[in-house]
C-alpha cells in the first residue's frame, strides 16, 4: 500500500514537472481530449485567418499597382485634353507638329502603363493574365486592340467570402478606347486638323472620368480589404487568447501544486523510512 501511494505521488509529480517544463497544460491529446479538440479547431481557424490576411495583402498589392497605373493614365489623358484645348484654339502648324510628337510619346507611355504586370500577370487583362492586353494592329484600319476580357478575379478573404479584386482594361479604359482616342488626337494634330482636335476633347473627357472612377473603385477596394483585415486581427487576438487560456499553464497555481506534491512526496518517503525502523528486532 505504501509503495502504491508513493508511486502515485511520483507519477503526479512527474506530470506536474512536464507541465512546468513545457508551460503547457496539454501536451498530448489524452491530457484533455475536449480541450485538444478546441485547440485544434481554433488553430485551424487561426491558420485560415492568417491565409485570408495574406490573400488580402496580395490583393492590396495588386490593387495599389492598379491605382498608380490608373492615376498616371488619368494624368496623361488630362494633359492630352489640355494640349487639345490649346491646339484647337491657338495652334499653328509648328505647335501641332510638336504636340503630335508629345501625344505620340504619351500613347507609348499609356500603353506601357496599361500593360503593367504584377509579377508575371498583366493586371488589366481580366482573366487572361498571361496575354499582353494592349497591342497595336497595323490594320487596316490601324488601331489599338484590347485582347483581355472583363472576367473578375476573386480571392478568398473570409469564410465563403470571395472578393473580386481586379480592375479590367474594359472597366478602366473602355478596352482600347483611351489609346485609340489618343491615336485619333495625334493623327488630327499631325494633319493640322483643328476641328478633329476639338472633337477629341469631347471623346477624351468622359474617358478621363472613367479612369478616375476606376481609380476610386480600386481605392475603395483597398480600404474595404483593410477593414476586413482589422476584423480578422480582432478575431485572431481573441482566438489566440482562447488557445492560451486553454493550453497555457497557470504558472502560479502549477508551482503551488508542485510544492504541495513535493511535501507529500517527502512525507511519504519519511513515513516509509519510519515504518521500516519499527520492528520487533530492535527489542529482542
Amino acid at each position, binding site marked *: 500500500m505504501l509503495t502504491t501511494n508513493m508511486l502515485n505521488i511520483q507519477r503526479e509529480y512527474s506530470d506536474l514537472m512536464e507541465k512546468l517544463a513545457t508551460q503547457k497544460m496539454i501536451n*498530448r491529446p489524452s491530457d484533455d481530449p475536449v480541450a485538444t*479538440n478546441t485547440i*485544434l479547431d481554433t488553430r485551424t481557424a487561426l491558420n485560415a485567418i492568417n491565409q485570408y490576411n495574406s*490573400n488580402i495583402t496580395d*490583393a492590396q498589392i495588386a490593387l495599389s499597382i492598379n491605382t498608380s497605373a490608373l492615376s498616371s493614365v488619368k494624368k496623361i489623358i488630362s494633359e492630352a485634353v489640355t494640349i487639345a484645348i490649346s491646339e484647337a484654339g491657338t495652334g499653328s502648324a509648328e505647335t501641332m507638329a510638336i504636340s503630335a510628337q508629345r501625344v505620340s510619346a504619351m500613347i507609348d507611355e499609356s500603353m506601357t502603363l496599361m500593360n503593367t504586370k504584377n509579377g508575371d500577370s498583366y493586371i488589366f487583362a481580366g482573366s487572361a493574365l498571361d496575354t499582353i492586353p494592349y497591342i497595336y494592329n497595323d490594320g487596316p484600319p490601324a488601331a489599338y486592340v484590347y485582347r483581355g476580357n472583363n472576367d473578375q478575379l476573386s*480571392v478568398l478573404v473570409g469564410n465563403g467570402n470571395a472578393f473580386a479584386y481586379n480592375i479590367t482594361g474594359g472597366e478602366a479604359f473602355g478596352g482600347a478606347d483611351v489609346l485609340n482616342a489618343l491615336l485619333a488626337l495625334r493623327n488630327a494634330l499631325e494633319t493640322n486638323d483643328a476641328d478633329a482636335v476639338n472633337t477629341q476633347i469631347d471623346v477624351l473627357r468622359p474617358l478621363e472620368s472613367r479612369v478616375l472612377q476606376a481609380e476610386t473603385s480600386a481605392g475603395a477596394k483597398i480600404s474595404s480589404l483593410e477593414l476586413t483585415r482589422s476584423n480578422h486581427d480582432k478575431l485572431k487576438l481573441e482566438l489566440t487568447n482562447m488557445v492560451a487560456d486553454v493550453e497555457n499553464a497557470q504558472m502560479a497555481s502549477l508551482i503551488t501544486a508542485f510544492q504541495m506534491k513535493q511535501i507529500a512526496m517527502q512525507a511519504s518517503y519519511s513515513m516509509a523510512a519510519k515504518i521500516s525502523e519499527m520492528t*520487533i528486532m530492535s527489542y529482542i
Partner: protein
Amino acid sequence: MADIGKVLYTAQEALLSNLTAINATGSNIANVNTPGYSRVRPLFESVGSKDPQSGREQIGVRISNIERIYDKFLETQMIAQQSALSKFTTREDILSRVEAIFNENTGGGINDAIGDFFNAWGNLSVDPLSKAKRDMVISTGENLSRLFNLRVESLENLQLNADESIANEIATLNSYLKDVARYNELIVSAENAGSTAHAVRDHRGLILNEISQIININYVEKPDGSIYIYMPDGGKTLVEGFNSWELMAQVNPANHSFYDVVFKNDPTQILNDRIGGGRLGAYLEMRDKDIPSYIEKLDDTALAIMDRVNTLHADGFDQDGTGGVEFFSSNPANPAATMSVNITDTRRIAASVSEHADGNNATAITGLKTEINTVLGTTIDGYFNSFIAKIGRDAVDAKQAVIRETTIYNQQVEQREQLSGVSLDEEMMNLIKYQMAYGAAGKMTATVNELIDTLLNLIR
C-alpha cells in the same frame, strides 16, 4: 499411576513438536520476500488420554498439520483481476504509442499540413502564373500525402507489433499450461501419498497468475488437488488434470495475414472473439478493432480531401488552357496509405475556371477548407480534429481503467498479504514462544533425568 518413562516420552514429544514449529517459522522467515508464498502455521494437538478413575493421566502433544494459510476465493478473484489489469495496462501502452504517432498538439502534423496545402492554393489564387506558388501547391500536396502515408504506416506497424506479440504470448501460454498440468501431477501424487505439496502449490499459483495476465480464464480446483482451466466463454478446456491443450497462432489470409488464435488440435475453430482479457485480449482488440478504426478515420479524411480537390481540379483549366486532370491519386482499397500527388509539371495545375490563366479555380479549392463536406458531415479539419480528440479520449479511458483496476488489485494484494503474507513481527513472537516451550521441555527432560538418578541411588 504415573510412569516415569511416559513423562520422558511426553517431554520428547514436546521437544520434537516445538522443533517442528520452529522449523515452520524458519520457513516463513526465509520466504518473507518470496512472491506468491503462503505462510504456514503449525497446528498443535494434544494426544493421549486422561482417565480420572484409574488416575492415569498422560497427555502429550503433536503437530497435527502444517497448514498453508490461503483463501481460495480471494485467489480466484485475484486471478480474474490480473486479466483485467494486464489487459488495460497493455491497452494503455499501445494507445500511448498511438498518441505519440499523432502528436498534433505540438504542430507539424496533418492538421497543419491540411492548412498549408489549402493556403498554398490561396496564395496561388492571387498570383496564378507564379512558378514558385505553383511549386508550393505541389510540394504542400506531397507533404500532406506523405503525412497520411506515414501515419497509416506507423499504425500498421503497431498492428504488426501486436500481431507478433500475439504469437509470442501464445508460445509462452502453451509452456505455462504444460507447467500447470505437470504441477497437477506432482500435487496429486504427493498428497495421495499423505504428504504436503505446499511449495508446488505456491508455484502453481504463480504460474496461474502469469496465465491470467496473458488470457482471461476460469479455473476450478478438484478434490484431488488438481486444477482445471477453462476459457471463459464457451468453456473450452485448456488444462484438464494432467493434460493440457496447446493453442496455436494461425495465419488468416482474409485478415491482412494476421494470426488467429486456434487450438492446435482443432485449427478450424477461431477463438479470437472468446478472448476478452489479458494481454492477448488487448492485442487482439487493438489489432482488429481500435487501430483499424483509426486507419478508417484517416482514410475518410484523405478521401474527402482527394475527392473534392480532384473534382474541382478536373473541372478547371491548367496554365496552357487544357482541361485539368485529377490532382491526387490513390488506391481506393487503402486511400490514406497510397495517397500521392498526380501532377509533377506545375503548368498542369488547373488554377483557372476558364482557358485563361485566372486564379479562380485555386480560390474555389481554397474554399474547400471551410466547406461542410457532405460525406463527413462537417469540415475536413473539423472531422480530423475530432478524430484526434477521440484518440485522446481512448487513451484517457485506458489510463483511468488502469488506475481503477490497479486500485482493486492492490486492495486484493493487501488482503492477501494480511492473510497469507509473512509478518516478521508475528514470526519473531512465535519463535520466542516455541523457543521457550522447547527450553521448558528440555528442562523437563533434565528433571526426569534427575528423578531416575534418585531412583537408581535408592537401589545402590
